[in-house]
């Protein structure tokens, strides 16, 4: 049985061939970037420098120095959240957040460092007006996902940005589910920071992520260590990107990420979004026809669908989809407990079907047929 991968919200698969070539080349030709000054060291530094430029261009960052490479979106979010908040700050976030946002924020709340407001689900998503209503004089930061990893609901980030700008509140965007799929212009959105994974919509390898930080936002130090700059000093350099990039980086992974983002740039974000949107509507229409299927994803969404099928536990449905149809999905709570509480699927969870750039119309038909068949079996 051929495998059909529909777990792109977890990580994209398969990866484009261009990243394999770039990673192999980097593996063969990299010294420690920017440290030693010999040809292999310079090669590695150039690979990273080029990748930084490619990402800066992709997100329209004013300078590539404002882009730092991280391990993943979780790493980026922890750096941004913990580097931005000060004791006594009020922070606003949403019930749709992943634990990579919720856990750092709840840890800060629990330690008495911040006050936290969590916005509830309203008409399938979180509405911009809810942010406006929650802003207080002591609100310092809004942290929001661009789209839910559980139900695919999109938050109108342009409207949220206007609200934050008017109120003088910093906005941190979690673009883990949207980078590489929805257009993101960090200047137009006036983001204080943006966190993204390298291995999801950006099609890069696992173990890569990125964080954009606006030039006037001075993030607290995250980790201190070697940077290849001001080596005579025992203090971390204050300038970007060195400020946030201590230690030998994942040069091989970053080579892959640079290559995948270049590949996406060549295709163009509008073409990617159009293709994804067409497949999303095809899948939505198909899922709505299946008897006994509950669809939790709202009508305006990314290609991320949470479902339950009558007669199946969410894990059981994932197992049946793989064993009987070769279709790979994700069951359970998807690391977003508040989102599941909001849609009434806590603790049983949902089966999540998520499409990606490599998904085809025929594959979408295949998963719809498989679910129809499973639905017939239990009815």
């Amino acid at each position, binding site marked *: 049985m051929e495998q059909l991968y529909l777990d792109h919200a977890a990580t994209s698969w398969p990866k484009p061939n261009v990243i394999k070539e770039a990673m192999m080349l980097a593996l063969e030709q990299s010294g420690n970037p920017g440290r030693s000054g010999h040809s292999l060291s310079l090669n590695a530094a150039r690979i990273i420098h080029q990748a930084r430029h490619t990402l800066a261009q992709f997100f329209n960052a004013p300078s590539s120095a404002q882009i730092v490479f991280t391990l993943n979106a979780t790493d980026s979010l922890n750096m941004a959240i913990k580097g931005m908040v000060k004791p006594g700050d009020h922070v606003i976030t949403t019930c749709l957040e992943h634990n990579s946002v919720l856990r750092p924020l709840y840890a800060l709340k629990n330690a008495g460092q911040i006050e936290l407001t969590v916005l509830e689900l309203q008409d399938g998503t979180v509405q911009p007006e809810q942010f406006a209503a929650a802003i207080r004089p002591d609100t310092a930061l809004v942290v929001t996902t661009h789209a839910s990893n559980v139900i695919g609901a999109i938050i109108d980030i342009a409207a949220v940005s206007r609200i934050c700008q008017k109120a003088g509140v910093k906005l941190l965007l979690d673009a883990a589910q949207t980078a590489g799929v929805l257009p993101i212009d960090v200047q137009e959105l006036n983001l204080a920071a943006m966190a993204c994974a390298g291995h999801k919509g950006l099609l890069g390898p696992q173990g890569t992520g990125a964080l954009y930080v606006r030039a006037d936002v001075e993030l607290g130090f995250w980790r201190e260590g070697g940077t290849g700059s001001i080596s005579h000093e025992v203090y971390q*350099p204050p300038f970007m990107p060195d400020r946030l990039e201590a230690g030998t980086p994942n040069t091989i992974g970053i080579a892959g990420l640079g290559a995948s983002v270049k590949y996406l740039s060549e295709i163009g974000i509008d073409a990617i979004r159009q293709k994804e949107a067409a497949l999303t509507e095809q899948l939505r229409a198909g899922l709505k026809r299946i008897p006994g299927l509950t669809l939790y994803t709202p009508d305006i969404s990314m290609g991320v669908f949470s479902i339950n099928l009558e007669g199946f536990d969410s894990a059981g449905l994932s197992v049946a989809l793989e064993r009987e149809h070769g279709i790979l999905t994700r069951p359970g709570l998807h690391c977003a407990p508040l989102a599941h509480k909001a849609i009434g699927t806590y603790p049983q969870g949902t089966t999540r079907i998520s499409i990606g750039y490599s998904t085809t119309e025929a594959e979408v038909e295949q998963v719809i047929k498989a679910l129809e068949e499973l639905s017939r079996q239990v009815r």
Partner: protein
Amino acid sequence: MTPELDLYIVTFHSTYWAFEAEQVLKDSGFQCRLRPVPREYSSSCGICAEVKAADLAAILDTLEQHGLEHDAAYGPLKGR
């Protein structure tokens, strides 16, 4: 007399700016090789650009035109 005597080095505040400068200088047709900073010069970054003495003024102009920060220029290099 060794050819090194015709060379200057330009230092930068960080690796980032050294690689930004390399790209701009190469695109502008200058000869420019990145190398470790000679120990006799002080620099906040371990990598510097080795350039021809005759090009130095034009190179510093080019860097300024592109808004690229450099730290200092030293030379001519004496020996290896």
